[in-house]
């Protein structure tokens, strides 16, 4: 099947966005947890930093990642004219 260039570009942009957001997800979750013992000396809002990240910070970042993705992709659909018609 021949895939038009515009659609290829849409898919490339999608992959790029997905990839970058997954990097953020990975760093917030696994990198901070890996260095948790070293970061425990620092505090934020009276919390030790790794505890704060695990209990609240990471959750905010996850919600934000999904929000950015939904917003950006919904716009991209319009830009590349692949949006479905709203029922």
């Amino acid at each position, binding site marked *: *099947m021949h*895939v*038009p260039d*515009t*659609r290829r570009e*849409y*898919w490339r942009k*999608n*992959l790029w966005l*997905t990839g970058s*957001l*997954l990097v953020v*997800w990975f760093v917030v*979750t*696994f990198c901070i*947890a*890996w260095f*948790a*013992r070293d970061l*425990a000396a620092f*505090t934020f*809002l*009276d*919390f*030790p930093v*790794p*505890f*704060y990240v*695990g*209990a*609240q910070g*990471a*959750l905010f970042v*996850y*919600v934000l*990642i*999904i*929000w950015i*993705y*939904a917003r950006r*992709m*919904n716009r991209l*659909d319009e830009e*590349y*004219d*692949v*949006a*479905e*018609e*709203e*029922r």
Partner: protein
Amino acid sequence: MRAFAQNLKRYYSFFTGGFVMFVLALAVAEYMGMPEKWIGWTFMAATVLLYASIGILTRTTDVVEYYVAGRRVPAVFNGMATGADWMSAASFIGMAGTLYQKGYDGLAFVMGWTGGYVLVALLLAPYLRKFGEFTIPDFIGARYGGHAARSLAVVGTILASFTYVTAQIYGVGIITSRFLDINFETGVFVGLGGILVCSFLGGMRAVTWTQVAQYIILIIAYLMPVVFMSYKVTSVPIPQLVYGSVLEKVTERETEIMADPAQVSARAAYARRAATIGREIDSLKQHDNVLTPDERQNRIDQLTKDMDIAAGKAKPLTRHAEPFPGDTAAERNSARLNFLALTFCLMVGTAALPHVLIRYYTTPSVKQARESVFWSLLFISLLYFTAPAYAVFAKYEVYTNLIGSNIAELPNWVHSWAKLGLVKVEDINHDGILQLAELTLNPDVIVLATPEIAGLPYVVAGLVAAGGLAAALSTADGLLLTIANALSHDIYYKIINQDATTTRRLAVSKGLLLFVALIAAYVAALKPDTILSMVAWAFSIAGACFFPALVLGIFWKRATKQGAVAGMVIGLGITLYYLINVKYFGMAKWFDISDVSAGIFGIPAGFVSIILVSLVTPAPDRATQNMVENVRYPSIRAAARK
């Protein structure tokens, strides 16, 4: 469509207001002297009746309505339904307790059970919605072709969902029996009625609209006690914001408790007890005596348990905020590795559990599916970022007001939960004062007892029970439907009888639902210990079975049928092999990873097998490649025009 969404908003705002009024009315009734038992009954009866009426009002005989709620659930409401679907009895009652016991290390659950939604949002939900069929095996079957992949996906669905649903029904039994004063088996079957009246009549449609109501009840019930507790301790009613300072106080108290000579003597007494039991075990092992080998083994098992408990109490306390505690560097490293592995498995498992993924078939569009994951996680986070606050407030209360007080004058909540065996106090050093080592708390007690600790009226305890019931029922509904639909749609309709009429398909579906529900209730009524530990396995199992096949199916056109079958068999096989052997046959652990995180081996193995086998088998045909292409774009119409 818009009018429909507006109406929904109106109904549910009205419902929320009504529910709050109902709770207030009961509070007034309690003040006027209504007995506690009546309050418990009123709560249970009113909420179960409510779920039943939603079920009856939304009954349906339409296939699309029954399987995917007519695909017209707006993003926000699907988010709430997903929240209720997702948060189980374990999240509602057990999680705060786990955090109380494990401190930082328990946060693996908080991050794992929320971070998984990033994977759902980015890698799966929009594409599954575009595919737009009925079940997860449906996608696997259509993408890879042939019955083998589809059947394997059904097996995976049942493996991951059945123990999970059994645990929910078990939870329903516990809650109803505790608050209604009926026996456990009756409680199980009462709860079963509450589950069935909903899913049986209206399938996904009824389940969806009930779950929205259940979410509202469970979140109010979860937040209320801890908000009051926060107000009591810090005079700020926003627990999530202020528990950092409470955590600091807990840390100070930990140091004081460790240094307290009375605590030291209590720990020494437990160490002596552990040693005594150890000698008893040794003598049992060496000498023949009057006991039969079976009796002797049982006795040894029992003593070993007692010895482990005593030895645990002799250990220094673990600090709440300290990540990966351990005596040696090796212990600490192993704790860290297990933390990361568990977080990873819970995340990937979350993104692969069929009962969560099918929720994204029910939105009206791809756009709304993306937004819906955002709402799902927002609603879920509301509970998950409150759970650590529960744990810290409870710990503060126990460490400052309970420890060091006179055993003869302990507060009332200790006595009432001690009666149920959830709190144990033992004055091992005979000084009449309670030391930390002398107190045993069942994790469930943290959420259940917080209303009493905060000095709230009984009505709040009833509310918490209703919330726990809502959490268990909603999850059980979603799971049962997922199992029954995988069997009826994928096995019966797609494989056995493709000419079946819609009436017949629905009849088979409902019959299977009833059958699966009864088996699950029967298993739950046997109260198997293992069932609760097996729930945690569901994440590794689902992750290893589905995640690689789903993700590669969407993102890699070259993935073939043979690759997918190999990946699912090998991923699932390695996971099951590891967890069963480690748990039951004492196999040496690989890299010290515990059995719960078996997916850490199975998931990558699944990916590697799919890729390798796909590369040596012929590429998928044109039609399959077109299907993948089609799934990637919300609409292809425009591209054709350009």
